[in-house]
């Protein structure tokens, strides 16, 4: 087992979690009142963990860089949340959700964790409905479902195109209830700048009050990191502007192993890049692939004419269009998993069939869905022989009800009407499957430091299925951590309050100050954004949708060089002891400049293609990913040793006892 013990309980897969819950230690209610827990990040994972831990009786302190917990980026999730409820009676079960998730992740996730996730999924929906989350319903009053990529059942619950918002507001409400009771103290506009270890255990954090600039010490008996993903290492991504890796990276530097950093999800349906000043990319929910058909022109000359504005997409008839996903993957069609859909779009655009000015876009077309829904609506409305105009109008109404806010968002950004002309989309960085390595209890390699949600690596392997991020965040926070953290804390009931006057806190605070002052004393050649954009270009061009050994080696060298340049020449205006957004950004980009190199190093060492990690050297003659289970069926967990180039690899071998390893096929 080596240094990495996954602590997966023994016994049959379906009984592991129940058995584990029965066997782990509990903390009695009186003792919980004497135990402090720090939760960093207040998205779905952090917010749900904080609310539940406080409800159990622990004293919880939450930290978020936003001005309110309600603004965490979970809020931007659109399409839905999976749960094995089988309300549709279409053959769903926890096992099938488990199977789909393992397969979707291209056999690089841990069986026991994923099964637990599938097992808890139904519970989440019950919980959220009880909390007043207004999921979409049918006319009979029952909950509605939709389909997502990579599966053959309808198990996705949704609240229009704002599912993440509604689930997060549910967590936020649960937190508010505990804040009102005095069980949670929330520190908003605060950023964690270091993790403090005492006797090898996580015992607190150093945080900066982003309003006053004050550096603060906070202690606790355990620290939960739920700080999201690191997609912003690419500069342009669908993440929020403030999303960052700092908390996870600081923990990594203190001893938490970082697992599979190269596993990044490039989401197929985002609004294409429009210009040089673009600051972020906007996702169009995967749910659109339920009804939208993806295509490019069949003939190169048509693609060229469209690019030059001489031809409109609506002028091309069916036979002149290449619905390439339907052609290549007839079984799943437009609903193949994200990694497959993204690579297929890139393949067509690289071959010259792209349809926007830069040649980096494909069409997502709702015309046939509009007509199909329109005919159905005409029937149910008693219109016997509707003309085409009526059908179209009725169909547009149905589409508006389903995706109205997404269509509106598209129109505001792109300035064209997606009801009349097909949307243009292109893949963009969206989610990171990699993250801090955790065991079955969600504990990192630092005792007392837990990691939940997107920030950990555990459940999605090399590719995450749509509508599974929300599920994981809430399962971790509501139903997993409250048990497993109690087991750890049961040994801490006699510890008493942790003093922030301990030398460990003093040393950590001094380190944080020194780092911030160093950032403020750069030579002032270039802004933080200058470096961030440069890093993003390296990452996108050399560690993006397709990677090869040569490019990755170059990326490693270039990032190391850029990092040295940054520390020498960055310009951060303003002072330490006042609000200073440039200083905040500088700290985050400094960490991205380290993570980016480890990312490339991880991608270089993994000589196979799996999920979102596509190495050009390892593909089938048809251009599909070629996995190497003989040599790479493991989690790559990196130990910090100074420079990223010195990071040491530890392997957690993955065991598949319940699922047979297969080549993933969506044909």
């Amino acid at each position, binding site marked *: 087992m080596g240094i990495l013990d996954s602590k997966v309980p023994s016994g049959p897969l379906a009984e592991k979690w129940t058995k584990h819950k029965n066997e782990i230690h509990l903390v009695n209610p009186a003792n919980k009142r004497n135990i402090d827990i720090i939760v960093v990040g207040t998205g779905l994972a952090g917010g749900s963990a904080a609310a539940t831990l406080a409800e159990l009786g622990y004293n919880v302190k939450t930290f978020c860089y936003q001005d309110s917990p309600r603004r965490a980026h979970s809020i*931007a999730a659109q399409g839905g949340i999976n749960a094995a409820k089988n309300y549709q009676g279409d053959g769903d079960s926890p096992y099938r959700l488990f199977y789909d998730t393992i397969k979707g992740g291209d056999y690089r996730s841990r069986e026991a964790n994923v099964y637990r996730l599938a097992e808890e999924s139904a519970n989440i929906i019950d*919980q959220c409905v009880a909390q007043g989350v207004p999921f979409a319903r049918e006319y009979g009053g029952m909950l509605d479902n939709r389909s997502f990529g990579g599966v053959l059942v309808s198990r996705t619950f949704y609240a229009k195109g*704002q599912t993440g918002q*509604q689930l997060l507001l549910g967590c936020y409400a649960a937190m508010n209830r505990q804040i009102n009771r005095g069980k949670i103290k*929330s520190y908003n506009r605060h950023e964690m700048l270091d993790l403090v270890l005492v006797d090898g255990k996580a015992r607190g954090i150093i945080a900066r009050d982003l309003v006053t600039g004050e550096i603060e010490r906070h202690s606790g008996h355990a620290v939960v990191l739920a700080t999201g993903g690191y997609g912003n290492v690419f500069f342009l991504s669908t993440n*929020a502007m403030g999303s960052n890796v700092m908390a996870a990276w600081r923990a990594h530097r203190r001893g938490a192993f970082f697992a599979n950093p190269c596993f990044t999800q490039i989401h197929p349906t985002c609004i294409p890049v429009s210009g040089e000043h673009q600051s972020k990319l906007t996702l169009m929910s995967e749910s659109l692939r339920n009804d939208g058909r993806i295509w490019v022109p069949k003939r190169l000359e048509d693609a060229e004419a469209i690019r030059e504005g001489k031809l409109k997409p609506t002028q091309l008839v069916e036979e002149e269009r290449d619905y390439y996903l339907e052609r290549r993957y007839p079984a799943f069609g437009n609903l193949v998993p994200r990694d497959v859909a993204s690579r297929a779009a890139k393949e067509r655009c690289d071959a010259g069939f792209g349809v926007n000015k830069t040649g980096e876009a494909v069409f997502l077309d709702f015309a046939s869905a509009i007509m199909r829904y329109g005919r159905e609506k005409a029937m149910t409305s008693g219109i016997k022989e509707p003309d085409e105009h009526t059908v179209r109008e009725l169909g547009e109404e149905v589409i508006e009800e389903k995706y109205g806010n997404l269509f*509106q968002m598209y129109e*505001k950004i792109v300035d064209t009407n997606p009801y009349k002309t097909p949307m243009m989309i292109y893949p963009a960085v969206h989610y990171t499957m990699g993250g801090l390595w955790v065991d079955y209890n969600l504990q990192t390699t630092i005792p007392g430091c837990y990691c939940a949600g997107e920030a950990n690596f555990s459940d999605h392997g090399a590719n995450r299925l749509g509508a599974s991020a929300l599920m994981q965040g809430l399962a971790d926070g509501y139903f997993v951590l409250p048990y497993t953290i109690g087991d750890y804390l049961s040994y801490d009931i006699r510890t008493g309050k942790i003093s922030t006057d301990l030398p460990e806190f003093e040393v950590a605070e001094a380190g944080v100050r020194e780092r911030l002052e160093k950032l403020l004393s750069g030579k*002032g050649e270039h802004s933080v954004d200058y470096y961030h954009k440069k890093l993003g270009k390296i990452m996108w061009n050399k560690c993006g949708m397709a990677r090869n050994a040569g490019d990755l080696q170059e990326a490693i060298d270039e990032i190391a060089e850029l990092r040295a340049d940054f520390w020498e020449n960055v310009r951060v*205006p303003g002072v330490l002891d006042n609000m200073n957004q440039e200083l905040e950004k500088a700290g985050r980009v400094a960490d991205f400049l380290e993570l980016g190199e480890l990312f490339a190093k991880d991608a270089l060492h993994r000589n196979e293609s799996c999920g979102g990690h596509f190495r050009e050297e390892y593909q089938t003659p048809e251009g599909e990913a070629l996995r190497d289970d003989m040599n790479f069926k493991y989690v790559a967990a990196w130990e910090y040793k100074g420079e990223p180039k010195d990071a040491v690899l530890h392997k957690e071998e993955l065991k598949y006892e319940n699922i047979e390893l297969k080549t993933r096929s969506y044909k």
Partner: protein
Amino acid sequence: MKLTLKIWRQKDAASKGQMVDYPISGIDGDMSFLEMLDVLNEELNNKGEQPVEFDHDCREGICGTCSLQINGEPHGPDRMVTTCQLHMRKFIDGDTIVIEPFRATAFPVIKDLIVDRSSFDRIQQAGGYISVNTSGHTVDANAIPIDKHDADEAMDAATCIGCGACVAACKNASAMLFTSAKVSQFALLPQGRVEAEDRVRNMVRQMDLEGFGNCTNTGACEVECPKGISLDNIARMNREYLSATTKG
């Protein structure tokens, strides 16, 4: 595009602020309003001046972080969008654009264009929740059927992003639209009915304590709301409040 920006600059909460003029050029219609401010900040930074601090995060109109009073309107001239989704194609070459923070006693300025909206959090903490434990052992999600119309209406109210545009638009700086959206969401659902009376009393009390003004039904909040939250919610909250307070 060439533009003149008139921007509110204020060092911190204790300092006095003032409007400062900034000419800017090379602005493209496809840029978002905040990307235009990014360009300005890069220029200021290059000149060794202090960049303008403003709140923003998701930049896709859902987190509610961005604010800004643009030419006197919260989130600017376009309808049904937040500032981050406002695009420069809504302006024309030569325009002067006045950019201020949201103004309200209950939203004190922290720095430049950034205000403190924690009063909104405290209103939610006073009762914006259903008192159910999060341990997951509740009834099956389909055990209580909910009328689709009620569920849809609850959803419409629940889409409030808590940005504060309603307060900034109101001549009384009232938070009625914000508060009523949450009161309505839960009042419309069977799960929320149980403690509806306590909820509305507590949230309204907190709203008043925070120093928000009263509602005089001008409807400016609804017009400026980037999510189209309806005035009907205020009417519903008034009914709920009346019923809760007269029952004693």
